[in-house]
C-alpha cells in the first residue's frame, strides 16, 4: 500500500484525479481535513492556516515566523495521518511535507492555461484577461510560498515521480497511470518504510510542540530516538528543558530524547 501526494494548480483537475484514485484504490482522500486537524489540535483558526499554506510569507511574517510555525502544525497533522498509510493527499506541498519516505508516490497534475482560464471565467463570471491574471497570481503565490519556505520551486519536474498533463490525456487516463504506479513494488509499504514514516510523524509532533517558542529548532527521529538540534543560546534554556520533559511524558513512541547544541544539522532534519 502507498501514500500518494498530488500537487496541483487551481483548475487543473487535480482534485478530481485525487478523488477518483482514492475511490479506485480504496484509500482515504484528504486535503482540507489536514487543516481541520491542525486547527483543532493547535487551536489555530483554520483561516490562518489556509493563509499560511497559500500565500507566500511577507516580510512581517518572516520576522514573526508565523508561517513557519503554522506549516510545522500542518506538517505534523499530515504526517500523523500519513503514518496510517493508504492515503491520497491533494493539498499543497505534500511532496515537501513527506520527504524521505520511500513509499510516497509524488504526482503533479498540470493543465493547459487556456482550459484553466475558461474554468475560472465560468466560475467567477469574469473576462478572459482577468481570469488569466488571477490564475497567474495564484500560481505565482504558490511558487513563492514553496521557494520562501523550502527554497525549492514546486514546478521543478525532478520533485515528482510522475507529472501528467491533462489535455490530450484525460482525468481517467491520469487515474489509470497513478493507480498502476501506486501498486508497484517500489511504492509498497515495507517495514523500513513504515518505520521512516512513523519517525517522520514523531519528529513532526516534537517540532510542532516546540516551534511556537523555538521556531528554528530542528528535529530528527530514528527508531523513536529523537534528536533536537538547537542554537547555542537555546541549549541551556530552562524553558526548553521543561518543555522536553512534558513532550517525553505526553508523546507516545519516544525511546530517547537528546538535545544537540551547535552541531551540523543533518539534511533530513525537519
Amino acid at each position: 500500500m502507498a501514500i500518494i501526494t498530488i500537487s496541483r494548480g487551481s483548475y487543473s483537475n487535480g482534485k478530481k484525479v485525487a478523488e477518483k484514485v482514492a475511490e479506485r484504490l480504496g484509500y482515504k482522500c484528504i486535503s482540507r481535513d489536514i487543516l481541520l486537524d491542525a486547527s483543532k489540535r493547535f487551536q489555530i483558526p483554520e483561516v490562518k492556516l489556509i493563509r499560511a499554506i497559500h500565500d507566500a510569507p511577507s516580510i512581517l511574517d518572516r520576522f514573526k515566523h508565523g508561517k513557519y510555525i503554522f506549516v510545522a502544525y500542518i506538517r505534523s497533522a499530515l504526517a500523523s495521518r500519513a503514518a496510517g498509510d493508504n492515503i491520497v493527499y491533494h493539498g499543497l506541498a505534500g511532496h515537501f511535507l513527506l520527504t524521505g519516505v520511500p513509499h510516497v508516490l509524488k504526482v503533479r497534475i498540470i493543465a493547459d492555461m487556456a482550459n484553466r482560464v475558461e474554468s475560472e471565467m465560468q466560475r467567477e463570471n469574469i473576462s478572459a484577461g482577468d481570469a488569466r491574471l488571477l490564475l497567474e497570481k495564484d500560481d505565482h503565490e504558490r511558487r513563492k510560498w514553496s521557494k520562501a519556505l523550502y527554497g525549492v520551486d514546486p514546478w521543478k519536474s525532478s520533485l515528482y515521480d510522475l507529472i501528467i498533463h491533462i489535455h490530450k490525456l484525460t482525468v481517467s487516463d491520469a487515474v489509470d497511470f497513478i493507480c498502476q504506479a501506486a501498486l508497484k513494488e517500489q511504492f509498497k509499504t515495507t517495514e523500513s518504510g513504515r518505520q521512516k514514516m512513523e519517525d517522520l510523524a514523531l519528529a513532526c509532533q516534537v517540532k510542532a510542540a516546540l516551534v511556537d517558542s523555538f521556531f528554528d529548532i530542528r528535529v530528527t527521529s530514528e527508531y523513536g530516538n529523537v534528536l533536537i538540534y538547537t542554537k547555542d543560546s537555546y541549549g541551556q534554556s530552562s524553558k526548553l528543558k521543561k518543555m522536553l520533559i512534558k513532550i517525553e511524558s505526553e508523546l507516545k513512541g519516544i525511546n530517547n530524547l537528546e538535545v544537540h547544541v551547535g552541531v551540523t544539522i543533518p539534511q533530513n532534519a525537519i
Partner: protein
Amino acid sequence: MPIIIISSDSYKTGREISKKIAEATGYDYVDREILDTVTKKFNFQEGQLIKALEETPSLFGLSGRLRNRLLACIEEATVEKLLKDNVVCHGLAAHLYVLDVSHVIKVRVLSDPDKLVSRLSSEAGGPADKIKISLKSNVKKHKRWSLDAFGLDETDPSNYDMVMNLSQIDLDEATKNIAGMTVYRKFQPITYSTNCLKNKNLASRARVVLMEQFPDVKVKADGSTIVVEAKIKKRSKQKIAGMIKKLAGGINGVDYVEVHAVSDFRSGKGDLNR
C-alpha cells in the same frame, strides 16, 4: 498510429528508453543516426550538427545563423521521418519543433541522478561529485539552449503529455506505460493532425532552401500554399519577394507562395514563428 517523441535530461537514458519503446511497440526508431543523411545532403560535418543540437552560439563556437541553418536541416530530415508514422524519435529536439500535432505523444524522462552518476563514473572515471556538478550544469545549459534556439523551455512539463522520473519508477515500467499510450484515442492520427505534420514538412523543406540566401526567413505552410516572412528593406522589397517566390515555387509540393516583408520578427513560441 501515433508518433512518440522522447526528451530526457540525459542522452543515454533517453536513448535507452526510446529503443525499448520502439522494441515494445514495433515502431521505427529515429535518433542521431539520421544526421549522417543530413551531412551527406547538405555537406555539413556531423560534429557541427551535434554542436547545433547541444550548444548555444558563441564567439568561439557556432554563429547564430549557422546554428539556425543546421537546426533547420535537422528539422527537415526529422519531420520527413516522422511523416511515416509509427516512429519513436529521440535526440533530435523534435519535442521543440513538432508542436500542435495531436497524434504526437511527447514524454520527458528524468534519469535517476544517483544511478546516472555511478554509471558515468564507472564508464568514464572521475569523482562522482564532479560528475554530479557537470550533470547539473548540463541541464541548465540545455535549458538555455532550448530557449535560445526555439523559444521554449524544454524543462517545462507543460510542453509534454507526461514527465516520468526514473528515480522510483523503473525503466521497464516506464517503457510499458509509454508504449501503452499509443492505443489512446486522442493520440490516433486524424486527417487534420496528419495534414498539420505534412504542412510542417513542406514548411521545413522550403525553409531549408530559402535559408541559404535568406538566413532569417520564417515559413508556414497550408496545403500547397506557403507563407514566407522575411526581413526585407523597403526599397528592395519587390526584387527580394520575386527571388523568394522563384526559389520557393520550385519546391516540390508548392503551388502558391506569399511573401510578407517584416522589419523585425516578434519573438514567439515554437514552430509558428519559425
